[in-house]
């Protein structure tokens, strides 16, 4: 395998929220929900994004504007080129049959679970954001349980608050989650309480993406290749989860 960006043309762009856009491009090859690709803007930088759409040979990434890189990406127009390498990492493991599951997306974390939600049958989909305009993919699924911190739409409260209610009512065999790590940690604790298996996708600063540089460590697990998705059993041995992360320089900081 050669780990180098392949240049693709942006063939469509969709505004998802005031601060998030989806960029579509031609994509060949395999993809498991939860895996990620490295997106390269020549002479600028290269950063990790989940595929939020995958359909025949067209994939999409949904990008929240944050710092230098995502701001530059947001200036790209249809026809512009970006580099893609990957997919990398270990995605979510789907459950076959019709056991009930719950899929929880917090903020832009929704992008990571979007393709999983496309595939996993019989799943309750929960999305939470701070406020209504930030909600993603509103018309994508047959049904989605929405919540906002400020109550501007749907359930008022966090995804964890809503999830706690749902867990009481349904017999979930597994709960999937992606979002801020504080949220993930609470989901993990909630699952432990109720003896439900959970799978969460963790973010860490990514450089190589293929397990060599050690940048993305979380308790000896490389997010980029051992993760980004980890299950309850993995998380039990990952004391850094929910506690500390490593910055670009390698400094350990509290989350």
């Amino acid at each position, binding site marked *: 395998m050669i780990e*180098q960006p392949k240049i693709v043309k942006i063939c469509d762009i969709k505004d998802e929220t005031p601060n998030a856009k989806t960029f579509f491009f031609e994509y060949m090859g395999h993809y498991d929900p939860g895996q990620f690709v490295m997106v390269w803007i020549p002479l600028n930088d290269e950063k990790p994004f989940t595929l939020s759409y995958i359909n025949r040979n067209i994939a999409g990434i949904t990008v929240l504007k944050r710092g230098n890189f995502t701001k530059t990406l947001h200036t790209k127009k249809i026809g512009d080129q970006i580099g893609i390498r990957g997919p990398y990492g270990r995605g979510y493991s789907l459950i076959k049959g019709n056991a009930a599951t719950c899929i929880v997306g917090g903020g832009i974390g929704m992008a990571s679970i979007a393709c999983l939600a496309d595939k996993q049958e019989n799943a309750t989909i929960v999305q939470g954001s701070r406020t209504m305009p930030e909600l993603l993919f509103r018309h994508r699924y047959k049904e989605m349980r929405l919540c906002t911190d400020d109550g501007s739409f749907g359930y008022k409260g966090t995804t964890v608050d809503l999830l706690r209610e749902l867990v009481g009512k349904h017999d979930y065999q597994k709960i999937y989650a992606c979002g801020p790590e504080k949220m993930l940690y609470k989901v993990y604790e909630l699952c432990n309480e109720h003896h439900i298996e959970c799978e969460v996708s963790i973010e860490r600063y990514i450089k190589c993406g293929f397990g*060599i540089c050690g940048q993305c*460590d979380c308790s*000896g697990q*490389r997010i980029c290749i051992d993760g980004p998705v980890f299950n309850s059993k993995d998380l039990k041995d990952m004391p850094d989860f929910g506690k500390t992360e490593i*910055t670009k*320089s*390698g*400094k*350990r900081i509290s989350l």
Partner: protein
Amino acid sequence: MTDVKLSVNLCNIRLSNPTILASGILGTTRALLKRVAECGAGAVTIKSISKEAREGHNNPTVITYEAGMINAVGYSNPGVESARIEFTNLKEIGAPVFASIIGTCNDEFVKVAEGLSESGFSAIEIPLSCPHTPGFGLLSGQGTPKATYDITSAVRRITHLPIFVKISPSIPEITTVAKAAEDAGASGITAVNSMGPGMIINIESKKPVLGFKVGGVTGDALRPIAVRCVYDVYKAVKIPIIGVGGISTGRHAIEMLMAGAVAVGIGTGVYTRGIDVFSKVCAEMKQWMIENGYNNINDLVGIAHD
């Protein structure tokens, strides 16, 4: 099964086998060092530490190509103060841990070495040979015999730990540099660092792929160069050599030992064979030794020399 001895004595440090995690690969946190030791490494080296924190170059920082890997990480590291907090209780890692220290002047090397002196490292490696980080290594003239002598002497004065000086494959006077290190009190030579630098251009975007444009070449591409360097350095110095460059199989490791290395560093092999490359290489070495009638790995060292 025949009893085959893989353990090695490297400057009075006992390694259960001759494979060592090379610096800059996975050695960012204590937890990863421990994991690599559990994957069978005979020793592990931390990612190089400078006095102050460094973010390194922009991404892409590591890419691969047909013949190996090319990287310009740019010595990202949290600085010596944070490193001191990160790397504690090294006894529990399960294998000897080597520090790797860098600086832009003699004084910085000394400061970092002092900063890490109470941490329980088994040795200190000094790379004077990075080909792609301004201020350090080849890009600041640290690869010359004189600079090598000066930096090594300065660190030698303030520590009793074994010092390994890590040299570049991309300088003609490699044996002179190795001798300068030996004369200055180095306990061993690590040969070699990444080569080049090299450049890979993405032709569709017409731009170099690496964030820093150029980077050090490692892996298969480097192996014959590294073997020759070890072969030459073996003739030039009396101190032991850690052979590094393109090792990902037991055969490669044996080739490096025959050229004169006492132990071997593995970097790119973590990618090509997986994180358990260390135990794989050891198993392959053992197998070869049994088939070829050797029972002590140390008997292989330097036997390619006449």
